[in-house]
């Protein structure tokens, strides 16, 4: 008997896997048939709105909701903050009001009398000295706004700096951004006796039911979480939020279904953000351009907790022999952070690869050669080296790179190119699967997973279709409910490995059971059997159709369950490297930076769906272009407000802003053999540094802080 080994087919031998396959739910999404939490509207649904605190720092002195209860259409009021409570940022929920219509809920909100004692605030995330000097009382006590996040040393930086041929000192930074999910956070809650049914906009279908237990006193087994579609999460939707609990409480009080979705400003103020990071960097190299020392102090904020980018990723990817690093967190009266696509990495890349590029310029070395020379200081030189070659070819780097500010220009428009490197884990999470092969030949797969827009549903179906040799339409995938076998949350690029691994293994096991039945029934050699094109084959002779084979399981479906994938199975792996190159055109009279082209070369092991994988990289590049050029949370120091918390002033790119995007997967056999690795985070890491480096190459000066707005570009040009 042929060895029955769990695994993927050799490279190039898959029928569906690795091909460009449209999302199985694409039509539903494009036609509006796909229902999101925000669409849940069964008869009797009440609409809830929040009263939030307009101040950055305040004490809630008194709260009177009686008049709100009497407002026409208002059905219930849920208090979320108590008098005496300290409010630590704008947008803090105070009261939720549920009413027959949204407008009545707004009338109810207006009838609430909430009195605040306004307290001094600090929101300037870049201003370390200001934070150190600020005199803010916190809950009646004087509070220090800065926190040491550690310092550590390797080698002898001082000696290395003395010996170095080139030393560069620079300041770099990246402001806070929000997740800007198209569908805001929120839920729709319905009680059926003791049972709570929630339509939750979540990245964590299997992990959220338990979060209702403590605040509501409901039994975990009585909570159903449902989320078929989600309009973006990016790391901000793993938890049941206090407004979701308030929504469920309002539903309990009224005996009616209640929907509570945050409005856009509140979404931006309180539903998560990516921490800022600013850094003073000293970096040095020898006469050959070999990096010998790194010394940095970085700071920033993640809101009330006062943290910033982790020390461990500094400097990013490169690990010079001599290195000092220090980090300081700033406590601000800004909304709290949440994981944002590749936590820590984009910021660390933005202050590392820019500093290295400045050092290269100082040493008079082409950025590409400089990075190539130093690859031995990285975690994955064998990946980056070929990827740099591929990217340089796709970008035509040799023709386009020029010493800083010396490119041929068309009048005030200057062009430049830049590059950066990144790495990410992307190993699989823990997911279980239930698989049924029905006697009619259809295959049904159930997992308590979710499709956060990446095509998870499609990829699961592809793996099963590949394994059984049947069309995609014969596979039904059930996800989006916690009543299916438990699956991990979708974050950190863990999903694709986490769901395809168990699906492949369990599908193979089911197929082998069917082969056993086929061998007996048709009297064929078991070791020769294969499933392909809707048939079972013995060598090159077809034995029976897939339907005939499936009917052998009897009157009921063949049902198998499978546990999480393990590293030993060889289906999945972790740790990838990517290279990105950017080309920009800078208008030196207006400071406007236009993207000309971006090249992303990425290693992700085995590519499951080439179309969706490429889409994922496009999305990452566009998000990267956003935070590089236009997107930032602007906190007004005077009022403490997130002053651009709206879709007009919070500037996101449109199709005309993104230029030409070129995506190439690095997939030699050596990497293919590692199996499936996640792709969500890696390509969003490098754009900041790559684009900033391209701008520096174009105009001859570094614009130190992202996003590279016309204001910052013109100020840097003026400074020279």
């Amino acid at each position, binding site marked *: 008997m042929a060895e029955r080994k769990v695994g993927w087919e050799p490279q190039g031998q898959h029928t569906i896997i690795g091909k460009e396959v449209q999302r199985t739910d694409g039509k539903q999404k494009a036609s509006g048939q796909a229902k999101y939490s925000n669409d849940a509207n069964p008869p009797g649904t009440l609409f809830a709105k929040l009263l939030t605190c307009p101040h950055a720092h305040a004490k809630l002195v008194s709260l009177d909701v009686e008049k709100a209860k009497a407002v026409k259409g208002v059905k219930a009021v849920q208090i979320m903050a108590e008098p005496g409570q300290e409010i630590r940022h704008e947008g803090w929920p105070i009261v939720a009001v549920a009413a027959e219509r949204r407008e009545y809920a707004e009338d109810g909100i207006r009838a609430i009398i909430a009195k605040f004692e306004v307290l001094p605030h600090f929101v300037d995330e870049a201003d370390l000295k200001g934070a150190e000097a600020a005199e803010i009382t916190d809950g009646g006590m004087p509070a220090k706004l800065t926190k040491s996040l550690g310092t550590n040393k390797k080698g002898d930086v001082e000696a290395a700096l003395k010996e170095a041929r080139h030393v560069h000192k620079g300041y770099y930074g990246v402001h806070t951004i929000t997740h800007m999910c198209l569908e805001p956070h929120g839920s729709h809650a319905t009680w059926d006796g003791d049972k709570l049914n929630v339509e939750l906009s979540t990245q964590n279908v299997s992990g959220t039911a338990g979060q209702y237990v403590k605040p509501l006193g409901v039994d975990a087994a009585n909570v159903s979480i449902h989320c078929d579609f989600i309009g973006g999460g990016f790391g901000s939707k793993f938890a049941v939020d206090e407004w979701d609990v308030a929504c469920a409480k309002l539903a309990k009080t009224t005996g009616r279904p209640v929907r509570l979705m945050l409005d856009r400003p509140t979404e931006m103020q309180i539903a998560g953000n990516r921490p800022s990071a600013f850094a003073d960097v000293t970096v040095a190299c020898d006469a050959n351009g070999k990096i010998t020392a790194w010394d940095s102090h970085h700071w920033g904020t993640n809101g009330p907790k006062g943290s910033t980018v982790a020390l461990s990723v500094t400097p990013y990817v490169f690990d010079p022999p001599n290195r000092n690093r220090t980090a300081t967190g700033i406590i601000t009266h800004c909304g709290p952070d949440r994981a944002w696509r590749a936590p820590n990495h984009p910021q660390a890349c933005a202050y590392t690869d820019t500093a290295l590029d400045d050092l290269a310029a100082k040493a008079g070395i082409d950025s590409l050669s400089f990075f190539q020379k130093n690859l031995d200081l990285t975690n994955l030189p064998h990946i980056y080296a070929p990827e740099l070659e591929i990217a340089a070819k796709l970008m035509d780097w040799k023709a386009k790179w020029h010493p800083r500010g010396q490119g041929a220009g068309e009048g005030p428009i200057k062009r430049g190119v830049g590059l950066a490197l990144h790495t990410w884990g992307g190993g699989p999470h823990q997911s279980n699967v239930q698989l049924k092969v029905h006697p009619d030949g259809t295959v049904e797969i159930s997992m308590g997973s979710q499709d956060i827009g990446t095509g998870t549903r499609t990829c699961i179906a592809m793996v099963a279709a590949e394994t059984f040799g049947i069309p995609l339409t014969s596979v039904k995938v059930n996800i989006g409910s916690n009543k299916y076998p438990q699956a991990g949350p979708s974050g950190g690029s863990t999903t694709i490995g986490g769901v395809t691994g168990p699906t492949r293994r369990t599908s193979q096991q089911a197929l082998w059971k069917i082969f056993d039945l086929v061998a007996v029934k048709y009297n064929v050699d078991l070791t020769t059997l294969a499933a392909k094109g809707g048939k079972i084959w013995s060598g090159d002779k077809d034995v029976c159709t897939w339907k005939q084979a499936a009917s052998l399981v009897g009157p009921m479906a063949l049902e198998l369950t499978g546990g999480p994938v393990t590293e030993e199975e060889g289906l999945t792996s972790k740790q990838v490297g990517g290279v990105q190159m950017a080309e920009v055109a800078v208008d030196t009279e207006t400071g406007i930076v236009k993207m000309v082209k971006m090249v992303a070369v990425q290693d992700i092991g085995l590519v499951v769906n080439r179309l969706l994988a490429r889409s994922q990289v496009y999305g990452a590049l566009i998000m990267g272009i956003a935070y590089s050029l236009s997107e930032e949370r602007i906190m007004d120091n*005077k009022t403490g407000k997130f*002053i651009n918390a709206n879709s007009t002033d919070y*500037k996101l790119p449109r199709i005309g802003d993104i230029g030409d995007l070129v995506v190439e997967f690095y997939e030699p056999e050596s990497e293919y053999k590692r199996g499936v690795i996640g792709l969500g985070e890696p390509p969003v890491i490098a754009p900041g540094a790559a684009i900033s480096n391209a701008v520096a190459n174009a105009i001859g000066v570094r614009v130190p802080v992202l996003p590279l707005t016309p204001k910052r570009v013109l100020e840097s040009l003026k400074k020279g």
Partner: protein
Amino acid sequence: MKSFEYARPETEAEAVAFLGEVESTAILAGGTDLTSLLRAELVTPARVVDLKRIPSLHEVTKVDDGIQIGSLVTLEDLAKHSLLSNYRSLFDVVDGVRAIQVQGSGTLGGDLCHLPNCWYFRSRYGLLAMENGESLPEAGDNRYHAILGNSGPAKFVNASRFAPALIAWGAHVRVIGPAPEQAEWLPLEYFYVTPRSNAQGNTILKPGQLISHVWLPDAGRLASATYEVMQMEGLDWPMASAAATLKLESGIIRQASIVMGHVAPVPWVAQEASRLLIGQPLNEETASVAADTAVTRATPMSMNEYKVQLARTAVKRALLKAADQSPV
């Protein structure tokens, strides 16, 4: 959004009457901004008067000495109208709006009356954004605020996209109300005011009044262009803009009118810069001198010095574009 009455007049007189009957009203034209203002409760009218059913406000007609445009003419219709084909600076604005949704529903009158985008105003601090006697834009984040005409309490910038181009053409507006049959024509330049108080508003419109028409002089052989400095390629507001209308004879400028937008609480007429150009050829050098002159008296605030450069560039590029000499 607070509840309000909805009125739909079918004649100009009826509109004026509807506006005069209640204390607080809002005028609905294309609604591209009013709906946001209502939702945010920045305006809370007792009555919204929808002008869309008034036929006279949708007309573009040839009159003796020029063209008369109804205030409800949409951006899209403006760009398509054969009578307007020689007013290039207006098309530049329509193009710059980019979003077909706004082009299709936004109106000329609505744009002229667009309330400021100042983020303090939009965060409910009032037009002047004063708190405890202190100017918030002055003390806070003024990166998008005024660099000219900002010595008083008003620090916002006028939001109209068309006003610079129209003023550079010498446009007049017809204001009707508040009394029935009351109508007055005045130069658009004088329509805008720099308020000293929140109650004053940023135009001369009093309760019960509205713009019914815009008049443009014959285009003749004049050349024109608008240049808006916009960071994004999609829907975005200019950080600075300039419009120029020029009379060129054998390459020599005989007449020039330059107006800047988004740099002051009102559209900013650059008289001295315009005057300097008379008798000069139009080229990179003369355009640069005019542009420098246009911003000589700029008084940038703590965070917006860069806008001086943007305004300078807008003037230079509008001039070169009007004469088809755009470098970019």
